[in-house]
């Protein structure tokens, strides 16, 4: 895959080769989370890391509300809430931050990596968190690595927060040109273990993951590194890895049987596995995955699907739901369209699929009401209102928290969508 690390910009207007897809760009009110929300799964992936948002009460409230329940004794994330004194310059915000970090590290000695996470307010007042991270790194040398990135809503949407966090880790990755497969993007631990075992059977010599399970156990990167993206929202990370000499394996994302097979096969082939080996290892999975999928396909086939923009997973999910579950795509919304990273999935969408990049939520809801789809994939702010209008929904945030990658998860993934319809059918108050 040809990927330019320089010119590629996820936000640039989508141009490119003539596509059989209809692409609409919209701007208006966007009903998506900001990148801070990624902390909810990132902190679970790396239990020795702490995510300190430098922001406002709104930031703290957002993460708490997005996380849904406050189940942790002391979460490994928090917000350094800017007060009036910080803004008025009465207190040097940097000194305050240093004090707060020192207290935090004293309280949480198990923390090995501290992410200072920029927010809308910290970006607007131009609080230099890169400098702060440098300074704190010197203060706490050998004890903890301090990194920074922005999860602000003015710069990032929902899942882009993970992209920014992984980019922040980049300077810490050692150089090593040895051959290895690098899976990039947070996976559920069990799913990751499964993939690693399968790649072993496919003859891939070394498999590493980014982010790793321990923030201090970072994979190396170099000319022998072949990057396999597990999540479709890591544009910046992919480009940064290519810049470090790695090459990118082009494949659809590992959702559904078809996507997962193609994803694993592409990696195996890149490491020289023969078609026979690939077939021998993967075909039984495909067969079993299809069997698991079949009952859900029965319920989903022919049903009309509308995806609101949310997590950037919409395009690969649309591909899975249309090709493997037989759903009809009314509209596929995405917060932004990165044609290069989506190429393999875009190519598999049915011709004429309507893609909508960006959002004007009012206009989009008008289209939903006009089209009366059988299922709408949307955020939690919209789900109950649409249900109340008689439109079935699947709330999208579950898709970033659930193990849905791989052939063995294809049935579970389909079930998440089928459940909404099954439940509606099961209820009767007559």
């Amino acid at each position: 895959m040809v990927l330019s690390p320089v010119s590629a910009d996820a936000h640039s207007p989508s141009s490119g080769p003539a596509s059989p897809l209809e692409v609409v760009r919209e701007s208006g009110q966007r009903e998506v989370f900001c990148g801070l929300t990624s902390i909810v799964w990132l902190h679970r992936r790396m239990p020795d890391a702490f995510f300190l948002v430098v922001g406002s009460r709104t930031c703290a409230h957002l993460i708490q509300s997005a996380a849904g329940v406050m189940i942790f004794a002391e979460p490994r994330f928090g917000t350094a809430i800017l007060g009036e004194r910080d803004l008025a310059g009465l207190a040097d915000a940097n000194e305050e931050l240093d004090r707060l970090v020192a207290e935090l590290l004293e309280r949480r000695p198990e923390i090995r990596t501290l992410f200072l996470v920029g927010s809308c307010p910290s970006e607007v007042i131009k609080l230099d968190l890169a400098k702060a991270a440098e300074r704190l790194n010197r203060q706490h040398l050998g004890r903890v690595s301090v990194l920074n990135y922005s999860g602000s809503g003015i710069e990032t949407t929902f899942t882009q927060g993970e992209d920014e966090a992984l980019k922040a880790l980049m300077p810490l990755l050692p150089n090593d040109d040895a051959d290895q497969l690098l899976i990039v993007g947070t996976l559920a631990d069990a799913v990751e273990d499964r993939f690693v075992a399968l790649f072993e059977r496919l003859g891939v010599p070394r498999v590493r993951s980014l982010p790793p399970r321990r923030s201090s156990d970072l994979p190396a990167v170099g000319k022998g590194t072949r990057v396999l993206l597990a999540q479709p929202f890591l544009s910046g990370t992919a480009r940064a890895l290519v810049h470090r000499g790695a090459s990118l394996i082009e494949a659809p994302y590992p959702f559904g049987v078809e996507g997962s097979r193609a994803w694993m096969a592409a990696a195996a082939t890149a490491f020289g596995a023969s078609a026979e080996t690939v077939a021998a290892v993967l075909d039984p999975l495909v067969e079993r995955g299809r069997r698991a999928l079949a009952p859900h396909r029965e319920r989903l086939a022919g049903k009309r699907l509308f995806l609101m923009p949310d997590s950037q997973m919409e395009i690969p999910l649309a591909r899975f739901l249309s090709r493997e579950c037989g759903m009809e795509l009314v509209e596929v919304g995405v917060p932004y369209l990165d044609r290069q990273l989506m190429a393999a999935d875009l190519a598999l969408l049915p011709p004429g699929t309507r893609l909508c990049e960006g959002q004007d939520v009012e206009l989009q809801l008008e289209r939903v009401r006009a089209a009366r789809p059988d299922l709408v994939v949307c955020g939690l702010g919209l789900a109950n209102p649409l249900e109340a209008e008689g439109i079935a929904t699947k709330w999208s945030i579950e898709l970033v928290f659930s193990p849905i990658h791989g052939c063995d998860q294809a049935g579970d993934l389909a079930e998440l969508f089928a459940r909404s319809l099954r439940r509606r059918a099961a209820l009767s108050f007559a």
Partner: protein
Amino acid sequence: MELTLWTYEGPPHVGAMRIATSMEGVHYVLHAPQGDTYADLLFTMIERRDRRPPVTYTTFQARDLGGDTAELVKRSIAAAVERFQPEALLVGESCTAELIQDQPGALAAGMDLGGIPMVSLELPAYSKKENWGAAETLYQLVRGLLKQRMPAPGTPKPDPARWRAEGRRPRVNLLGPSLLGFRCRDDVREITRLLGEHGVDVSVVAPLGARPADLQRLPEADANVCLYPEVAGSLCSWLERSFGMPTVKTVPLGIGATVAFLRELHGVLGMELPADLQPDPEGLCPAERASRLPWYSRSVDSTYLTGKRVFIFGDGTHAIAAARIASRELGFEVVGLGTYSRELAREVRAAAKELGLEALISDDYLAVEKAMAEAAPELVLGTQMERHSAKRLGIPCAVISTPLHVQDVPARYAPQMGWEGANVIFDSWVHPLMMGLEEHLIGMFRHDFEFVDGHRSHLGDGAPAVAPAADRAHGDGAVPLAVGHGTPAAGHGQGDGGQSAAVAAAVAVAEAPAAGAEPRWSTAGEAELHKIPFFVRSKVRRNTESFARERGIAVIDAETLYDAKAHFSR
């Protein structure tokens, strides 16, 4: 700059959203960056609202900052007015927009909105919080809608008893109930019914369910009932100052407060106090029989509630009310009282002082959890945050205040206020505890093999967390030490922890970490330790260890434990 892990209140613009979303015909244009739309899900998920909040967000992004965000604000206002055709418009900003100073209110004031009343909200996001934002929004909205109707200075105050001369029933406004408030929906119904029984009509309920035109009718009532001071306090005092409307200030939470509320109401409206609100020779008031709480509390089964140690934390209004109900109407012992509502800190401090306690005024949930652990309560009455803390500590808990979880918006009718509210409170505070005879029997049979430590509730609240809680208390060094368990009979024989824990807390001392070898527990010592009620066991353990350390005792046996007990019981 302050470190916050979980927060009790959202930012002030979320308070404004609570007002807008509670009402009909109001729309709120909020200048806010992408991501701030998260607040919608508080209403659609926690309150299960079937409509989106009436809020239009500008959702500006970094690339807009280079351009004209003011233009974006104006576009959003014009589009919202055209699409939603509100009867009143609120215009404001969230924390980030406050920094870029587009002044959306001034922009809106310069636009032709077709005559729709517009209220500009200035809610300082870096110093204020959600409840303040709600109170300020309600006040500003009413002020904006009523400014044309303010009586001229010097106009005599209307007589709150004028209903008599006008030949109608007295009428009052119920102010403060809002979405994301605690049980407001059902409190309004209960209080409306209660007022109706006493011949008083409800004129306007606001903000919940009110339209802007209803707010304009507020001065037509004879008095205002301030049901939720956190939200309606500023409005009530402004209506008092500007329109001479008296406020009924007693919040009818609990039996005593409901009686006091009715008496105050009758007094304010110049109504004759009915016989059933007059105290009888025993100091009781026949009206109380409308609730089952007084009898349930006097019934013999409730003997076992005597002296139960409760820790209370919540918003100011609910915390104060809970302390009064717990101590006077259920015979509990309040061992901790606090609030995150700094606006009501003075009142909470006074309530705590009455109970011989020092109030905890904090919005740091870890400080609250620490105070909870130190107080060694048998029941926690708190918010969703305390529910989680209590679960970790293995203590039963009932939720009495915001912040809410979806389960605090029950399908059934479950008010907190008035007579039925008292019934609901009795059930929801007593059910997490082990009940009456059951506790007695478990006390009797506690040495039988069926007895499982921590089995204290039908609901199974405490059981699994007991051991980790003890370990945690043991491990983190944050919990001050206490030892002693009342009379040996009570502490060991009957399994009645209330008395014993009281002594334990009374002799709580700060930890003094000492160097030197850690004392070891002998088998006999451990066995004796396990006879102590588990909720004070970790404290007894720590205190005994510190006692042993100070005296250079290497092995703790049963005798050391009793020596320590005697030492700390002085």
